[in-house]
């Protein structure tokens, strides 16, 4: 449990051009407060990390940004639009990769992309080349005519990623996008995210894999129990955690007050493993 006084200061600001503005977001599911008074902004041309342990409220936040969930309190603006009221306009400019690839299992990848292109009103002449290139980059071309149900977790993820990139969105919302991807495809996706940023696009990257956040994100919001614990660049976060020069893992554990409990667990584990070895002898 994170105590109220454990919330750290953040380095967020209201300056610059924003893609997403979230103010005092609250989302409850029955008695559970999934997101608690969350405020952050995502700038244009940045990769913004949403970091937190499992169940921290990252996916709920992402769904509110997409207009899939209504916040109980607070406000969200995406491209200065209301994601629920102006859903169509927002979604035209957003690409989304969910944590669990729930894509139509009975369709082939070809049918899926035709469906997506039809609903996004994409001109085939314009996007054929792009689709071909994405499929080749992710080595997904051999699976183009396969039924999605038959694909591995990684290949399903590739199809989901390609579907989110096809229409060249301004904002990419990626919830654990590297799950299941092989090293080569993960590298390709990281490069795509960097290129997207260079072109002025924004990325919201929700993850609990700290190395990925450290490698890719310009700024990171750390969420725990639905609350914003800290926000800033790695350097800023290290200052907040009083761990200058430490890696993100240490900073993260310190900020969510888990550093000591991890030490205790490791200590216990070491002792029990040592005992086990002695007993065997």
């Amino acid at each position: 449990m994170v105590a109220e006084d454990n919330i750290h200061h953040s380095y967020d600001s209201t300056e610059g051009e924003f893609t997403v503005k979230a103010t005092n977001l609250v989302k409850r599911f029955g008695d559970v407060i999934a997101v608690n008074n969350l405020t952050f902004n995502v700038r244009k041309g940045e990769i913004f990390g949403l970091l937190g342990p499992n169940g921290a409220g990252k996916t709920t936040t992402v769904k509110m940004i997409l207009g899939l969930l209504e916040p109980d309190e607070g406000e969200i603006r995406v491209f200065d639009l209301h994601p629920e009221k102006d859903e169509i306009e927002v979604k035209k400019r957003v690409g989304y990769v969910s944590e669990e690839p729930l894509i139509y299992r009975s369709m082939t990848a070809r049918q899926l992309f035709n469906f997506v292109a039809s609903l996004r009103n994409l001109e085939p002449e314009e996007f054929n080349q792009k689709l071909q290139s994405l499929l080749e980059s992710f080595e997904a071309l051999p699976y183009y005519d396969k039924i999605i149900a038959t694909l591995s977790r990684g290949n399903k993820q590739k199809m989901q990623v390609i579907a989110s990139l096809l229409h060249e969105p301004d904002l990419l919302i990626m919830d654990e996008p590297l799950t299941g991807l092989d090293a080569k495809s993960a590298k390709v996706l990281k490069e795509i995210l960097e290129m997207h940023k260079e072109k002025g696009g924004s990325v919201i990257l929700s993850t609990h894999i700290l190395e990925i956040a450290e490698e890719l994100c310009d700024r990171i919001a750390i969420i725990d129990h639905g609350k914003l614990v800290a926000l800033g660049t790695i350097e800023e976060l290290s200052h907040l955690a009083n761990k200058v020069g430490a890696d993100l893992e240490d900073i993260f554990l310190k900020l969510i007050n888990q550093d000591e409990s991890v030490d205790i667990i490791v200590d216990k584990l070491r002792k029990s493993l040592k005992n086990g070895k002695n007993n065997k002898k």
Partner: protein
Amino acid sequence: MEKTTRNRGIGVASLISLYKLSKRVYHESILHSQLESSGSNIAKLLERIGRNPKIISSQPKIMKFLSSFYILFLTIIPVRSITVVNFIISSNKPSHTQIPQQWITLVGSMMSSAFLLLEPFILIIFSIMMTWGLFSPEIYAWPQTLPLRKKDVEKLSLLTFIRGINIQLLFMILVFPLGIAIGILIDFSLYSPIMAFLLILTALIISIVSAFFNLGVVVFISKKMYILMDEKEDNSGKSSIIKTTISLLYLIFSMTLMYIIQISIEKIPDYFTTVLLSNEQSLLVNNILSFIPFPFSGGYLITILITNHSLYFSPITVIGSITGLIVFAILTYFLIKHSVSTLLNTPKIKSDSMKEKRNKKEIIVQLQTTSPLKAFIRRDLTIISRDMQLIMVFVMPIVIPIFAVITDIEDNVLLNEVGLTGAFLSVLFYIALTTYMIITGVTNIESGGETITSSIPIRTRDQVKSKIPYFFTSIVLAFLIWHLFFINDEFFSKMIVFGLVYLPVIPLAGIGGLFFKILMFGKLRYKYVVEEIKTEHRFIKHISSFLFVLLSLLLFVGLSFLGYGALGIGEIVYLTLLIVVFNHMFPK
């Protein structure tokens, strides 16, 4: 390595510990097949499993219970076999021998044989959908990572299959002797203790052999079914058609058989008095049939013992039934040997070898776009054609009212106008039920692709429009087909006129039900969505949506009492309301 595992007691796992382990493998296979067959419901299934993991095992438990219950229900046959045969013998006085002795033997044997024949069918109906998945080598991937010997993994596949039908096997072994025992108790004065013991022992032997035979049959059919259904890698239309046809045939076969079982149990006593063959002809038939190992030899042997010397049996019939039973046991032995070998080999089969054989075709990436409405319709049709549960949703509306009317005809409830009105109301109930099945089926398609649809600029209006045509398909057809059963009825002309005027109500109520369900489950702050978002009080919402459909249908029945004109006006008003509601809920 061997020594280490032996010390830990895992390497040389006893059959009992392997059987315990098979529970995990069995659950894995159930989950595998549930995910495979869930089609568009996968999101809901995963959500439900997340909330309550026990649902993985609840489906096979229900199927086990149902098949065991049906097998137990079949006990009626041997019980009636004894009581009816004894009754006919005792009432068939030599002075007026209306019923030839050989005819009694023939029908009595047929009854017992029918029991033995129906058992494997019941096993197939209720178990095959749970057992064919056990031939997937994928489910043995995990046990192969455990410190188990290859031989143990092979045994595990056999034990997992047996676990899949364990309760049914037990019932199959016990039910026949139990039925005979009950029959003996009813007519206990006719049997000496030795005779009763002999009769029960014979029934037990026959049922043990039959149970193993049935096990072999289920293994054989499950394997064939797996080969046919596992062609999932193949995306050809042919593959989809084969799978769909198999599943439809399975459904029709199951329903027809259940109907036959029900009818045959009710009608069995009538066959004794309906004499079709003379004594000589019956004798010849008995002599021939008694040699046929399955299902007749066992049936004849038990009938010979039931009659307890009260009837004349030709020695050929006696020899035939004993020889046939021995042949049946030998055949069963070979069948089981083959089945065991098939099951032991399951973990060895590599499905990848099939994939490698396929020719690599050049893949041309070419997007083909269309209007959103057409895209939704195409997507739905693609998903429906490959999703067995959804196909069933569209087939059931036709099947259920037909079975309802056949049952009504059998029960002679349709002789007058009151009976017809009752039948009409019952068919309306079925129509409401199947309409609601279609509503949930077509709306569930949306949640199956949540990731895709949640980020696409979709207009709910297009989504809803794409669902409307389904309410003009099988339910409307089912309603019309139902009328055709009364073509020879004196009330037919009245019925068909009323039916045609009432016909538009069926799709209208369906569309109304669709809107109502969306209202219940998909009302967001600024719009309505087809997906079930507001899932609290789910059960009550489903019940009220179903009742909405049913009450809509009944409302028009009420209106029809005011005349066809009132019914027609009611339909126009309802349609106008639907258009208004549609434009309000799903604006352009």
